[in-house]
């Protein structure tokens, strides 16, 4: 057992960090959000540097790809890292240019980057279906959560092999957890820094014990989310490990959002402060795959082999 990143992982994350510092981050995120645009440039840089091939790479693998998804989330990369780095490679499908939509057959609501996407993967009960999307047929809906949303109409759906739906959903769970983890960590770091800088009643906000305890509890939730997500990726996204990671992370996400906004107070509720860049985007992740309710059901089903009513 070794929870420390290997030299290869470290080097990989350093390189990714450098790339993201040039092609992602808060400023770029604000510019793209105004237009509701997908970041083709970032995707192309990641592709050129080989980050979209990590999953099947002999020197890396699914865990490294998961770590990369986390970092892309942390730096607010306006792409769809979960299908690109995890789900498509796990299914052995080519990774196209531009956004890819993930959906499940029980829901038909608006999806992230639906207006620009050319491809949608839908998880059925057993098989996964790959279909085409046409931007002309997408119906954008207003979004308050950073990611542009649209309703889409899949065309020319092609059923994939039996069992593919399970693979897709499990890696999707790992991916959405990794994305959330990266974003939660940044929102948390920003809040801790704020408590050190902000003075109230003649002392640093962070010197108040009641707040110290709350920050400490948040960090425990974050640590849990981190290791459960990494472990799920390490174990190849088994049904139980991926469901547990998502169930824990999505529950933590709620508390982290509430607490970071509460502790940063009025300034954190404004558009000029950066906190919302992470916390609002995080909310869009909460609804994916049926949300916390569905993740918890998946835990029950995988652990005890019973389908929840």
């Amino acid at each position: 057992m070794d929870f420390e990143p290997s030299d290869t992982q470290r080097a990989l994350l350093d390189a990714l960090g450098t790339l993201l510092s040039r092609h992602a981050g808060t400023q770029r995120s604000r510019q793209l959000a105004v237009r509701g645009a997908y970041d083709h440039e970032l995707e192309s840089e990641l592709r050129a540097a080989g980050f979209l091939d990590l999953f099947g790479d002999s020197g890396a693998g699914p865990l490294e790809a998961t770590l990369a998804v986390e970092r892309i989330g942390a730096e607010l990369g306006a792409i769809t890292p979960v299908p690109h780095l995890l789900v498509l490679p796990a299914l052995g499908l080519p990774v196209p240019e531009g956004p890819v939509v993930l959906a499940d057959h029980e829901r038909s609501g608006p999806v992230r980057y639906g207006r620009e996407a050319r491809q949608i993967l839908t998880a059925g009960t057993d098989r996964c279906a790959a279909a085409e999307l046409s931007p002309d047929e997408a119906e954008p809906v207003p979004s308050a959560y950073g990611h542009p949303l649209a309703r889409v109409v899949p065309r020319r759906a092609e059923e994939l092999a039996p069992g593919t739906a399970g693979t897709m959903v499990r890696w999707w769970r790992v991916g959405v957890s990794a994305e959330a983890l990266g974003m939660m960590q940044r929102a948390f770091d920003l809040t801790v820094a704020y408590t050190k800088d902000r003075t109230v009643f003649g002392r640093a906000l962070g010197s108040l014990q009641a707040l110290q305890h709350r920050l400490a509890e948040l960090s425990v939730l974050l640590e849990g989310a981190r290791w459960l997500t990494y472990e799920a990726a390490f174990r190849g996204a088994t049904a139980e490990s991926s469901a547990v990671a998502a169930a824990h992370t999505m529950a933590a996400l709620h508390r982290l959002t509430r607490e970071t906004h509460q502790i940063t107070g009025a300034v954190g509720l404004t558009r000029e402060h950066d906190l919302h860049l992470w916390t609002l985007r995080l909310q869009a992740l909460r609804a994916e795959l049926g949300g916390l309710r569905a993740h918890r059901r998946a835990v029950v089903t995988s652990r005890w082999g019973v389908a929840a009513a």
Partner: protein
Amino acid sequence: MDFGFTPEEEAFRGEVLAFLADYQGMNGYFHRGESTGEGVRRVYRALGERGWLSLSWPKEFGGSGLSPAYEFILWDEMAYARVARPPMGPGLVAKALMAHGTAEQCERLLPGLRLGEVNFALGYSEPDAGSDLAAVRTRATLVHDTYEINGAKCWTSNAHWADAIWLLCRTGPQDSRSRGLSVLIVPLDRPGVSISPIPTHDGGRLNEVRFDGVRVPVENRVGAENDGWQVVASALAVERHVQFPPKRLRRDLQDLVTWVEKSGLSRDPVVRRRLTGLAVQVAEVEALALALLDEIISGQPSAVPAAYHKLAGTLLAQEIARSAMEFGSDEALIKDSDVEFMWRQAILETVGGGTSEVMRGLIARQAFGLESKG
């Protein structure tokens, strides 16, 4: 012990509901949409015409001399209908004037407040004085009979359409904390006042209000110089029963239930269990609101029941709002749908009007006599 309202009070509720029939769908409670400032002004004027902005004012000040229960009923029903929140002017400002103002100030200002013609913003918070209000730096210097004001207020609601600001400012030495503050009434059209928007997550607007050599006559000071802390505290004490009307939560829950039914989630036992839990919590907050109202009616209100109520009520608003998101419907993400808006709005509630942390500290100190160290 008696938990009911009187037949007269219930009859008044009927009048309020009849009045509200003309204002359905207005949404001024949350200031949604661009023009709600003007819409809310219109509602206040209509209430003023009926004498409903001065229900509990003593008769000698032109009020109806009724129990605070009438005000509670009015603003509770206004909250359920989402039409408007209670205005600061005829509430907090008027009641402070009656307690601390001069006869001249009452004569000059109360009629406009009673009629809903004059609207006030509250100028308390500053960039470096939020929960720690005694750190206020905006300075007013008295030269002969005129105050000159310099500084900035922040997170100020409604300043972009109000007529005047109820300004807490420093008149004593910089380190005098709560002992060196005064309250001034400053018309917002004075030279040197500049107002700029601070956009918030709910799509609404708070304001930064800057004062650059703004001059007001000494007659605009309420209470004695350096006595502002007492003026502000006592003004707040008599308004707490209308600040966070519990029916807002009953309406939030109703909107959630309606949405759940439409989304086809209502048969899910997990969803039903969650809704049941929320319904019990709504009842809890309503009970706390009535306990608070009873304190106000008694005439000897402490801040503790208000803190219980604000703390429980605003946290519950967030609990209700996040449920839709956790039920996992993508529809909960569509901007400005009712359940989506509720989530973005509710995160502001535990910060504005006294943070949850201030409420918890107040309960610990005043209810249990616990002092914090340092």
